[in-house]
């Protein structure tokens, strides 16, 4: 049951220099892969691009074939109300559920806002969040 909420995010290693994001995004465009959300984390000299896409397997293969270092990471998407207080509400749920966030980013689209979260014990987190009344995205949205 918990597994159906675990989303495959793709993570791509990138050097911190001009043109690297363009190369990644261009490759996804050419493969007609849609990006729902993404973020860039940076350390000095390098970064990791993280993205939720509609076809993660294809994205992984496409980028790997082009020589990128790519991995899948399990994340969960917590729905939020797209209005003041939305994040605060969800953050409280995660706190109550005892979920420690490793990193998070968010997007807001037609169906409301979503907080994408990477946690340590993902199945436990899913259970706790649902128990505390949180609403999670189904992984099937991302194949």
């Amino acid at each position, binding site marked *: 049951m918990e597994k159906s909420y675990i989303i495959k*995010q793709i993570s791509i*290693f990138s050097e911190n220099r001009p043109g690297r994001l363009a190369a990644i995004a261009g490759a996804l465009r050419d493969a007609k892969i849609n990006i729902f959300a993404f973020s860039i984390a940076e*350390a000095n000299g*390098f970064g*990791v691009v*993280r993205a939720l896409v509609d076809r993660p397997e294809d994205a992984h293969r496409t980028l790997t074939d082009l*020589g990128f*270092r790519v991995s899948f990471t399990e994340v969960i998407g917590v729905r939020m109300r797209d209005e003041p207080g939305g994040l605060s509400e969800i953050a409280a749920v995660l706190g109550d559920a005892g979920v420690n966030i490793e990193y998070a980013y968010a997007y807001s689209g037609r169906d409301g806002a979503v907080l994408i979260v*990477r946690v340590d014990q993902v199945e436990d987190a899913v259970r706790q969040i649902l128990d505390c009344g949180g609403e999670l995205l189904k992984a099937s949205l991302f194949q």
Partner: protein
Amino acid sequence: MGCWNRSVEAMPPDELREIQYKLVKSLIGRIYETSKFYRRRMKEQGVRPDDIRSLADLGKLPFMYKQDLRDNYPDGLFCAPKDELVRYHVSSGTTGKPTVVGYTRRDIENWSESLARAFSSCGIGRGDVLQVSYGYGLFTGGLGVHYGAERVGATVLPTSVGNTERQIELMQDLHTTAIACTPSYLLHMGEVAERMGVSIKDETDLRVGFLGAEPWSEQMRSRIEEWLGIRAYDIYGTSELSGPMFTECSEQKGIHIWGDLALVEVIDQETGEVLEPGERGEMVVTILQKEAFPLIRYRVGDITILDDAPCACGRTHPRIQRIQGRVDDMLIVRGINVFPSQVEHALLEIPEVGRHFQIVVDRKGALDAMLVRVEVSEEAFSDKITDLMMIRKMVEHRLRGSLNVGVAVELVEPGSLPRFEGKSKKVVDRRSL
């Protein structure tokens, strides 16, 4: 000119050659008896001790290579009984195995004698305070210069490397008159001193620098001399020879090689043929009086020109010009020898990164900075920045451990590093000397 040992240093060239011949003869006789390695080498070459009948016959003898030192790690080339050794020094080899050099009491004495003559030829002796800012320990620089300075009667201030502000304070308080260190470290000291509001030129007694263990240039000499108000002398040696052994004299026109201690040939790197003085080539060294770790026709790998004309200082021993490069891909970073093959070797032991690499050496301020660029392996790639940073730290730590010099590591995208073998792309040296 203040000779330490005038009868030797100014002896007629013919006499010096006669002494060299006798020393070579007895060295070869002794080595043929005691060194299994060199006896085999000589037999392979079809040469016996009796075949050495003049100094020119030295050319009949086989070469020794850095590889030989590695193959015989740790003490396979030693020719003195173990209980006669009074010291070891260890330097990094081209790959995993270091080079161990052993010294008998007499070896240390000859090494000190060599430097005592050198220091005297630059006017340093009793009443001087010599600050030794070479590293002490396994590296030969610190202890080598230390013993030479004590021999000549100078007062040694053994600061070793690092803690630069304290070095400058001590330089002022204890009235240092001479310093031995790498040229880049002296430039660094100059900068740190200025930040402290101290002018080395006007507010210290420093007047002489013995600078070496890394390549430098005449331009750098002029800059150091003008800026710091000192005379800067080139000092030469490598751990295999003993350590730093020879310097320029006050004329600053080449490094005197004491002919009764060492015999230098310059050869054509390709054919091995001995070149005439004045021709540029690879330096080959025979240390004439070494007991524990003799070197016969050792190919040091440095490129220079031999000059056997008498020096204006009155010394008759031959000189070599400032080292003009290397025959191999050895780099010198902060005075420490680094071979790209060491980096390769170290990376093979670290599964988190690939085997491809690029070394970038630059000069940050006065000091060398070495960067090694590596690719994260597929298995080790994590999307957590902290994991990647830990990998980088770990690789830095491991490389530092095997190279003995601080290294910064940069993680790069797979496939972005040069794939083909060869030095040109694997090493980028941006330093201008």
